[in-house]
Structure formats: C-alpha cells, structure tokens
C-alpha cells in the first residue's frame, strides 16, 4: 500500500497532532486516577488525635506502663503515675515499643511530667511531634507522696518518608 504526496503530508501533520494530543490525554487520565486516589485517601483518613488518645490511655491506666499499683492489694490506681516506673527503659520493655526498623511510620510519643520536669520517649521518637495531648494526673513519688501534675503527651504521627508502612 502506498499513499500520494498530499496524503503523506496529511498523515505527517496528523501525527504531530496526535503526539501532542496523546501527551495531553495521558496527562488527563493520570490526573483522573490521582483525583480518585486522593479522594479515597481523604475518605478513609482518621484524625490521628483519636488514635493517639486511645493508645495513650495505657500510659496512665495500666500497671505495665506507669499507673501506680498497690503492692499489697494489687489494686491499680488509674490516673496516678508511679514516678519510680516512669522511665524510658520501662516504656520500651513493658509499655509501648514500635518496630525498630519500620516504627517511624506509626505513632511515637514523648511523655513529659510538666511540674516534675521528667521526660521519657518511645524508641522511634525523633522530636517531630505533630500535636500534644494533655492529661491531669497525680504523681506518686518513692516516699508515697502524691502531687498534682500535668502529663504532656507529645505525639509524632509518622515521618512521611516511612508512611507506606501504615498504609500497606
């Protein structure tokens, strides 16, 4: 099959047109897909404060974390922090630890007792707090003396580079 000169020119002209049109159509399709993906992500997005609030319940409520537990009666006092327990080692060993390699992609915390000035953090906390939760607590020191304090829970939601860990 052969085509004459006029037809050849027409085909060549159309080819340039379709090169440009093809590029634009590709961009439009990719844009459409991105809009849908963004929409779906927005639809399933949960406020991180809610998740952080639920996770951080353990810090003040259970004896494995920092809640005071009477040695004799074994009764747990939610909202009363045992200052002897309030250590980074305990946080990592008994309370909350994220995956050493991929844990940057999930919630990490720095806990600060405002009046006592004591601070502890989880294993993948890199001072990139997104927000701070506040909780009124009592602190029980080694002598058994109770004092009022405020627990500041600095929350690092996820470091963006690692966010795919949560989203898989």
């Amino acid at each position, binding site marked *: *099959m*052969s*085509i*004459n000169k*006029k*037809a050849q020119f*027409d*085909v060549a002209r*159309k080819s340039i047109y*379709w090169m440009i*049109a*093809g590029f634009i*159509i590709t961009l*439009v*399709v990719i844009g*459409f*897909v991105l809009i*849908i993906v963004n929409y*779906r992500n927005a*639809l*399933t997005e*949960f406020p991180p404060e*809610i*998740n952080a609030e*639920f*996770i*951080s*319940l*353990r810090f003040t*409520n*259970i*004896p*494995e*974390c920092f*809640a005071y537990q009477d040695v004799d009666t074994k009764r*747990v006092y*939610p909202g009363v922090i045992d200052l002897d327990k309030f250590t980074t080692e305990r946080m990592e*060993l*008994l*309370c*909350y*630890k*994220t*995956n050493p390699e991929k844990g940057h992609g*999930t919630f990490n915390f720095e806990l600060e007792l405002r009046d006592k000035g004591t601070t502890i953090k989880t294993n993948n906390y890199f001072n990139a707090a997104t927000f701070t939760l506040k909780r009124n607590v009592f602190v029980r020191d080694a002598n058994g003396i109770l004092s009022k304090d405020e627990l500041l829970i600095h929350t690092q939601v996820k470091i963006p580079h690692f966010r795919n*860990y*949560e989203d*898989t």
Partner: protein
Amino acid sequence: MLRLNKKGSSILMAIFEILAVILVILITFSVATEFAGSTNTQKTFYAEDMRMMINTLVGTPGDASIEYPKDITGYTFLLTSDEIVVLEDQDEGTDPFPVRRYMSLPFEHSASGSVKDTGTLCIKKQNKIVTIKPCQ
C-alpha cells in the same frame, strides 16, 4: 498495489482517532468502575475501628469486652499480637488487597483470633489476652 489518496488517508485517521477516543473512555470507565466496586474503604474503616477498640481495651485495667455494632458479613478478620488484617471474602482464592493495621501491645499482653462467615464480632480482653470471635 493499493494507493491511498487524501480522502483515504483522512478516513484512516478518522478511524484511528475514534479508536483512540474509545480507548481513553474505556480506561476512564474502568478506573471509575474499579473505584466504585472497591471495598478497600470499608476494609480500612473496619481495621481502624478494630485498632481503636483494641487499644482502648489494652488501656483499661482489668477484663472487658466489646460487641462491634456493625454487620461484618462478607469480611474476614485476623488478629495477631502485631497486627490486624481485614480481608474481603472471595469465592476464589484470597483477597489480594488486605488492609493491615499495626499495633503495639504492652508486656504480657497478647492478641489472637479470626472471624469469618459471620455477621457479628466481639472483642474480649481477659487476663491480658485479647481475642476476637463471633458474638453468641
């Protein structure tokens, strides 16, 4: 030998253009259809709900249980001490796009269980062990 004049080439280009437009429309429709039929959104909601409920149970001293107030027919839930997995029940094979949510449990706490082919789900924490099972 077949020779194509200007009119012939125009018809050829018109056919090509129509095919290209049809292709673009088909791609757009297939993306939209896949999105409309996808259960990923629902699976994500279930997985996040589960994670929040388990974190609440773990953060509560003593034993407790929760009945999930939604119909979960058509989905499978798998729970381990490290993660929650939600899959859609499929006739053939397993769901290729499960939704996973990571969690960290305190010392001596553990989590396990699976729920499938049922409409109800209960989460129970007893002696620091969190389990999921169909409600009775």
